[in-house]
């Protein structure tokens, strides 16, 4: 027999108390999504979902166990209770996650639009069709792939037996198009994504045009000569690198020897022009929330300030071990993760960075990050695309080369930071950056 979440949660708390699990905490997440995908002038995919997930955490014999379910029925109550007990019996760590009463104060932060929630499905389908139409009408060298419009809404609640009772709801919409451009032997894929909190944020013409431009400008690409070169990394690409290596700023990783930043607070670990900020309270930020997954109040902080490491990202357990306050970055499951995480913008435009570089590479795309980048050693060697730059001007597209380096060294080699901070559908963002040297392997 299915139950609604309030009834189910009450039953779980009751069963936990009877089983001697105290304190106990329930996290409940529910999400809804809508996706329309068009291809070749027709709606190809239409997807709608609603999902729930409930996690019980609770203390048994001094340790905190965890179990979760997507089924809110009688059988799950038994599974949650026995799962928490078994989990608590297996865990051996000294430092414990804790279940605590609420903090004294939580900031308010908004990344939810009621108006977006009210947009009917037909309007979102029409937008996908509109992007598709504009893609079909473009340059004959471009073969449109698909156009997608997706919206999502998420609600996350936490409730515990010590008086904690928090809820945060967010939503967003994004639209993207992808295409393949071909001319002779040369082929290149194009992609453009826009996102926001209303239909005005996802303009059909801007998506279609952006996608075509992205594909076309890479046609006729040559190869790069192997060697060391100065590189301007496009903001979105730098954000991809930052995202891949964001774990090096986790105190959890540092304390376990999985990051080289353990105990290095106060040291210069990056170039003076690098300031790295974690801002969970950013209005309309993709990763914004007033509280983290332990129910701790979130706050804004600089992780790197003028090149100096100020703090790592903490949850309560890592903070206790390090003798500091939590930074409000608990991500659930004992992990630590950034919220809206970005390199603070500088004053120069991308073109000024290219001019400052003179000769080198404008790196616009890296792929295979899950394979070609090692978040523990910091080493990366990535299949890349970009443009060769001479005298500060883009001269031709280049492809089929790798860019290799080390993330820790990269932070030190940043020579200038651009003004064009961008978040490409991710809570991790960056402006363009000029890096003094990276290794390129081409021909």
């Amino acid at each position, binding site marked *: 027999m299915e139950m609604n979440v309030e009834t189910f949660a009450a039953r779980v708390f009751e069963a936990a108390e009877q089983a001697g699990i105290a304190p106990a905490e329930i996290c409940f997440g529910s999400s809804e999504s809508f996706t329309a995908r068009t291809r070749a002038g027709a709606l190809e995919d239409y997807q709608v979902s*609603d*999902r729930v997930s409930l996690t019980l955490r609770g203390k048994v014999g001094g340790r905190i166990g965890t179990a979760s379910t997507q089924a809110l029925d009688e059988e799950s109550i038994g599974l949650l209770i026995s799962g928490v007990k078994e989990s608590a019996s297996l865990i*051996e760590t000294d430092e414990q996650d804790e279940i605590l009463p609420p903090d004294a104060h939580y900031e308010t932060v908004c990344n939810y639009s009621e108006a977006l929630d009210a947009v009917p499905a037909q309007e979102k389908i029409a937008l996908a069709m509109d992007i598709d139409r504009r893609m079909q009408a473009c340059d004959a060298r471009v*073969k449109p792939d698909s156009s997608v419009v997706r919206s999502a809404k998420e609600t996350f609640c936490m409730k515990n037996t010590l008086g904690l009772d928090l809820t945060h709801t967010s939503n967003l919409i994004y639209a993207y198009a992808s295409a*393949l451009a071909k001319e002779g032997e040369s082929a290149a894929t194009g992609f453009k994504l826009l996102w926001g909190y209303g239909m005005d944020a996802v303009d059909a013409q801007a998506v279609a045009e952006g996608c075509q431009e992205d594909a076309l400008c890479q046609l006729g690409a040559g190869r790069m000569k192997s060697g060391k070169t100065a590189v301007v990394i496009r903001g979105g690409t730098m954000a991809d690198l930052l995202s891949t290596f964001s774990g090096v700023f986790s105190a959890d990783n540092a304390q376990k*020897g999985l990051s080289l930043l353990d105990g290095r607070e106060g040291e210069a670990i990056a170039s003076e022009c690098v300031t790295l900020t974690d801002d969970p309270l950013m209005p309309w930020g993709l990763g914004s929330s007033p509280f983290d997954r332990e129910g701790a109040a979130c706050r804004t902080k600089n992780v790197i300030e003028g090149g100096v490491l100020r703090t790592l990202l903490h949850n309560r357990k890592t903070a206790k071990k390090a003798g500091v306050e939590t930074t409000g970055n608990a991500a659930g499951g*004992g992990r630590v993760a950034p919220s809206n995480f970005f390199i603070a913008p500088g004053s120069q435009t991308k073109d000024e960075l290219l001019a400052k570089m003179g000769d080198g590479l404008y790196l616009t795309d890296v792929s295979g*990050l899950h394979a070609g980048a090692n978040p523990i050693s910091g080493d990366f060697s990535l299949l890349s695309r970009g443009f060769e730059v001479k005298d500060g001007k883009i001269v031709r597209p280049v492809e089929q080369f790798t860019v290799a380096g080390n993330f820790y060294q990269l932070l030190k080699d940043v020579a200038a930071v651009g003004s064009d901070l961008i978040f490409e559908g991710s809570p991790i963002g960056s402006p363009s950056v000029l890096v003094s040297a990276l290794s390129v392997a081409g*021909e």
Partner: protein
Amino acid sequence: MLSMSICQEVLARALAKGGTFAEIFFEDSRNFSMMLRSGRIENAATSRPRGAGIRVYDGLRSIYVYTCDVSRAGLLRTAERAAAAVTDTKGSGRDVVLHERVTPNAHRIERPVLSVPADERAQILRAADSAARAVSPSISQVNAGFLSREQHVLIANSEGLYTQDTRVYTRLTCSAVASSGAENQTGSENPGAMMGFELFRDRVDPEAVGRTAAKSAVTMLTAPYCSAGEMPIVIAGAFGGVIFHEACGHSLEATSVEPGMSEFAGKLGQQIAAPCVTAIDDGTMPNEWGSLNIDDEGTPTGRLVLIENGILKNYMIDRLNGLKMGMAPTGSGRRESYAYAPTSRMRNTFIAAGQDDEEEMIRTMGDGLYAAKMGGGSVNPATGEFNFAVQEGYLVKDGKIASPVRGASLIGKGSEILMRIDRVGREMTMGQGMCGSKSGSVPTNVGQPTIRVSRLTVGGK
């Protein structure tokens, strides 16, 4: 599990406004995961993913709606949401009559993980951890993970199918970090199978897993960076098969072939690889990580020859792409869970054993790279461009393995590398991976014998 009468009612409701086909995929799973770090078990959790996805074909268009509310009312509501999106209203209001088809099980499970005492499970991680740490004092950290999944599925569709299947997976993951203080290097080993806890009795020795991961990390710690350039490459078996998986396998999935976004589209019957290359995608291998009795659309799996002596023979095809291409599905329709509509995916995909001697291929290669162990990789199916990390590489000088090198990656195009394979060894071995694509992350085996590629671009420093 859902009764036949509820399924009939839900499928009929999904087709109430038209549509040519309706399907329900119901899943109720039990997962258990446990992680050990710094020599201690840090977390352990059970979870129960459960939900249902309803799919309707509206012409050649797929409508997919999924939910966690699997009560009769919840499923009917979900079917109505799917029906509301149907545009072609011809033939609306069909009755659906189901017949149970029993799925024979080719993968015997002896000890379901959740029936094994918790401490016996924990012992696996402790064994991997202490064996890894015993390899060298430079081993500074070991992450060991135990993962198990028991997925119960029920698939019913408007063509009368009503069938169930259970998939049981067990896996040990181990990653060891070797540190010199200023530098870290990692090595990993992640064996798994469609088996229960007997995996650790029959196939996998947790101590050997820990040792192998640790040795690889220690070797890489003292290795210099690989220098870049074009050179001949010998790639060892097992996870070395990731190169075929990424560079060729994805481009043979109907997902990229049907829309013409693959460099192998329209090339059936043509030579796309060197004559020494035969490649197979086999869903039937007993108890293998990528095997399935039936795919996630209910189609029984089989053994599919992709490339025979260099000639392209078959694509991997799911039901909907099969309709669009006018070709029969190949038991390749897969999805991570009910939260994904299925599409064509790989299962156990490998280059078949050949005729060549492994020692000879290194002896006659001159100067080049021996990739003893591959990391992961990725590919752009439209252009065929790929990128693989070499986890453990060795320089070959004058036909002899000289010294270990780190940081190498292999880049190129799928169509090129297939044509440049000039040696295929005699013994095929497989490795386990989680393959991510449009329908989520699914267990797949990669595999090959040791092979040689006459030349390839190596990225390094």
